[in-house]
């Protein structure tokens, strides 16, 4: 495993340090890899945030988190392709639908089990995941669908450095969303109530915070994050019922790599996994999907608190 990672690194760096003639070109390739990696990493970060917020609020890992991406991607296809709505209307409609979806999900898969231990709740989210995947297949069919993007394959050319516009959009929107989220959690009463609920339910209840409402809001926000991630990433992936699973698993490992339960950890972990995966994918493509897990196992064995565990010990 170690040698696998070092091979990736060695190849990655050797190509643009040793060969002088090729140097500039390969350095640009490398930069492009980093940028597309960061874009994919931003998606992992958004989904990882969805995991972490639910985990902090109710102490369970939601195994249907992947369906929080798959469902809005299909919603988007219905709104954009079937109903032929203009982009702003379609996107707003998808996000509004995700608010309802998050609430319904909480009411069915979590609320009846709220006083149960960890495992039955995990299994209930697995049941919900099977249900959603197969409902989606019945409604939208089994053939992979294409999600119309805003920019098709447009790229920005910066002196030989080509950056996909969709990648830039992903990075920009994620940044704005993270700033909004920071403001929500740190500067508004609602955000503080949600944080208090995550920290200590009993005390929060004693302070007069309606904790069940806060938990429902957390699920809704997590579903919204999934909705945004889906609208951003669906144009560069095929939309199928199984599209969410791998993203969710990698996002989950990212959150552990970053330091589980920590919001900055989820973001940094997601970006880190995205970049490592992009670099490894270039030089060792058969194992691209395993990279996140090699890193995860290495991190868990040698630094179980996560790479960024110490600096961000405070639980948000």
């Amino acid at each position, binding site marked *: 495993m170690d040698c696998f990672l070092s091979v990736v690194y060695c190849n990655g760096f050797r190509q643009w340090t040793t060969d002088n003639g090729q140097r500039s070109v390969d350095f640009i390739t490398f930069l492009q890899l980093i940028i597309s990696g960061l874009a994919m990493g931003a998606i992992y970060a958004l989904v990882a945030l969805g995991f972490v917020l639910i985990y902090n609020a109710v*102490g369970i890992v939601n195994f249907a988190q992947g369906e929080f991406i798959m469902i809005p991607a299909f919603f988007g296809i219905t709104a954009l392709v079937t109903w032929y709505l203009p982009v702003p209307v379609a996107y707003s409609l998808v996000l509004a639908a995700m608010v309802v979806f998050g609430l319904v999900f909480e009411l069915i898969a979590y609320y009846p*089990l709220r006083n149960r231990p*960890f495992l039955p709740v995990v299994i209930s989210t697995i*049941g919900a995941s099977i249900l959603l*995947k197969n409902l989606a297949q019945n409604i939208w069919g089994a053939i992979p669908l294409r999600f119309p993007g805003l920019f098709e394959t447009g790229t920005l050319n910066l002196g030989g450095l080509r950056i996909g516009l969709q990648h830039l959009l992903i990075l920009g929107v994620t940044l704005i969303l993270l700033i909004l989220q920071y403001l929500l959690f740190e500067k508004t009463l609602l955000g503080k109530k949600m944080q208090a609920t995550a920290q200590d339910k009993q005390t929060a209840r004693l302070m007069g915070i309606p904790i069940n409402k806060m938990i429902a809001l957390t699920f809704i926000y997590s579903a919204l994050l999934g909705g945004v991630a889906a609208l951003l990433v669906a144009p560069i992936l095929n939309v199928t019922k199984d599209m969410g699973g791998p993203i969710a698993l990698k996002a989950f490992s990212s959150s552990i790599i970053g330091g589980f339960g920590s919001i900055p950890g989820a973001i940094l972990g997601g970006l880190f996994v995205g970049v490592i995966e992009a670099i490894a994918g270039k030089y060792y493509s*058969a194992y691209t999907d395993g990279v996140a897990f090699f890193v995860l196992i290495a991190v*868990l064995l040698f630094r179980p608190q996560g790479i960024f565990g110490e600096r961000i010990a405070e639980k948000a």
Partner: protein
Amino acid sequence: MKFILIFLILAFAIVAPLIWTTDYWHHLMVLAAIYAIVALGLNFTLGLTGQLSLAQAAFWGIGAYTSALLTVRHELSFWIGLPAAAAVSALFGILLGFPSFKLSGHYLAMTTIGFGIIVRLVLQNETDLTGGADGIAGIPAPTLLGFDIDDNRKFYYFALGFLILLSIVALRVQHSRAGRAFQAIRENEMAASATGVNINRYKLIAFMFSALYAGIAGSLYAHSAGYISPDTFSFDQSVIFLVMLVLGGSGSVYGTLLGAILITFLPEWLRFLKSYYMAVYGAGVLLMMIFLPTGMWGLLEMIHERIIGKPVEVIPPLDRPGEPRKAELSVGAKK
């Protein structure tokens, strides 16, 4: 009473292929027996020791590939392939047991998921060793005392024999010193350690047993299907094994068997729903978790308790409702 019940169930298991006579149903019965063995393995780690492992399909796959490669490429007998599959799988089980020293709850779950995904990628990409995405075809049927076990009905009885044997072993282990040590670790690691249970050693033993069972089942699967490919041994399959265990009744051998059989046949019973049957299956899993927190076996036990007035067998619940979540499950990585 208990013995009459077991006798009746055994009799039913033996007569079943004569009632449902099509080859397809025999195939399902073979699968049910094989899944039950894998789920029994998972019962050692999750049910008894409380270690959430989601790599069971990977161990199953390691067993299947070991046995298939030995019999197809090296033309060895099934009777060498089977123990080899069990041994190789158990070795990987011990290997995966080591992270459980330091990790628990979600962290351990994610490590085992990662292990499972990496195993599947290796099966898919190391074409020279495993045949890659094409898989391995032409896996020979086993022979027993000169008889070829070459159709699903014969294979069902063959697999049933293994299942009965392994169920007895599982029951014996559960009530042995090791079984009590497993359960002590599940209930409270610190208290178990204070009473002299060597935690790490028993965790390794639990992981070894779980992989050993999966390895045997993998070998049986390879030789009954005749063809294996990496897709079968996916993370989704590990999840299905987990669902079998928890729906049946985690921690109980009988509950595990019940869960495995139920989950194997449930999609068949739902076929009349046409394309919606898998969706209803998912909804069913969700509803059962809401209404049957202790699994099917817990329900049967409760009914039995109501009628007879005493429990059939003392099965510690998975986690008691109302109690705070286990600290290890929410804290995660330990020092």
